[in-house]
């Protein structure tokens, strides 16, 4: 047994075993995704860029119930609303989503009773300016303006 160990040590058996693994990997296929050219599969449940849904008339679905703001751990959502004097309903006046603070936990999406706020599968959210991360309602409906990778 001792002799066998010694022989394998002198013949670098342990090292050659490792070398063969790396060599095998070299001739095998790489797993890299070349990001801007290839994009990996994004699963449906992915929590990415927030969007506000609109109904068929192009008006916001939001009923200004404020549940999302109350269920946000970081308080990144601000909902401003006033009561319509005719229909006595709460009408949304301003909706602000501060993406710098967002944790992407998905609580707002879960709690929304009308499926208005949604976290989409878009994940490219970089901006040059901090103020571009504070999204107003119209930006949330269209999706934020993206900086396109140019080459």
């Amino acid at each position, binding site marked *: 047994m001792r002799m066998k160990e010694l022989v394998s040590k002198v013949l670098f058996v342990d*090292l050659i075993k*490792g*070398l063969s*693994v*790396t*060599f095998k*990997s*070299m*001739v*095998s*296929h*790489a*797993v*890299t995704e*070349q990001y801007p050219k290839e994009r990996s599969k994004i699963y449906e449940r992915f929590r990415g860029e927030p969007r506000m849904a609109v109904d068929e008339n192009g008006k916001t679905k939001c009923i200004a119930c404020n549940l999302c703001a109350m269920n946000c751990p970081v308080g990144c959502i601000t909902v401003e609303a006033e009561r319509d004097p005719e229909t006595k309903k709460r009408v949304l006046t301003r909706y602000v989503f501060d993406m710098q603070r967002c944790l992407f936990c998905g609580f707002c999406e879960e709690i929304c009773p009308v499926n208005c706020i949604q976290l989409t599968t878009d994940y490219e959210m970089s901006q040059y300016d901090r103020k571009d991360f504070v999204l107003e309602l119209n930006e949330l409906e269209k999706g934020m303006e993206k900086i396109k990778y140019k080459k």
Partner: protein
Amino acid sequence: MEFLLVVVVKIVIILAFISLGVAYLTYLERKVIGHMQVRLGPMRVGWHGLLQPIADGLKLVIKEDIIPTQSDKLMFILAPVICFLHAFLVYTFIPFDGPKGFWGYGGYISDVNVGLLFIVAIASVGVVGIILGGWASNSKYPLLGSLRSVAQLVSYEVAMGLAIMGPILLAGSLSMVDIVKAQEKMGVWFFVPQIVAFIIYFICGVAETNRAPFDLPEAESELVGGYHTEYSGFRFALYFLAEYANMITVSAIAATVFLGGWLMPFPSILGPYLSFIPGFVWFALKVFFFLFVYLWIRATFPRYRFDQLMAIGWKILLPLAIANLLVTSFIILYLKM
């Protein structure tokens, strides 16, 4: 006059070739290690990233040059230059091709009767640049890195020198060209009769060039960057190039001394078919083989610790090299008698 012209042209060609080789060795390293790690390596600059080394070089040149305020400025500037200079000076003595190579002009800049000694000597001066850089930075990580590198280089130089003695004894000369000629005459490359010396030389060579698994002087996980932690921009590039040039040097020596330099493998079988290939191609192939093994090793092995490294150098490699030398000389003596 013509002699001088030929030499100057040869120097220019070899310098240009080596510089390009060094630049593309970094590319090769990134590609080979990348594929070994199931990645792709550089892909963006040029076709499959072929222009990457040039882009890197440009980037390093135009980067801000920082000299730490608390450093010894003159020495800080001098250190990478020393390192770089000696790494490239060595190529004076390396035969890329035989005396008839390079279309009759001789495939080397100069053939001195103690060429191998000069190569080892000049290469050993390069360490001055490393320790000077570490010291001049006046910072702790570079200091530790340079101390490590000196201890490492000095101790591995001994074993390395003794390992090369075996082939020298067989060739009976210190001239690089004569060593190759001796291999031609003997009909077998020296790595066969000198297999122990070959392995010792290769291990020492890896250690001499601060490559993994002996890359302690610049171990980034321990000493951040070792002796060149404080260097940036062009000065860092000089260190970087020196390291890769040293890799090529060590591989070239190994190819010359142990693998028959510019000689063709199996001349009796392949000779009639492949004789049109010039010698420096064979030489380049052999060097490439060693470089590939370098990269392969780097991708595979963990790093030794400092005391273990010293123990290997002094307690295993040195006695083995001495034993190899003794056995070789006894055999030669016996054959002569």
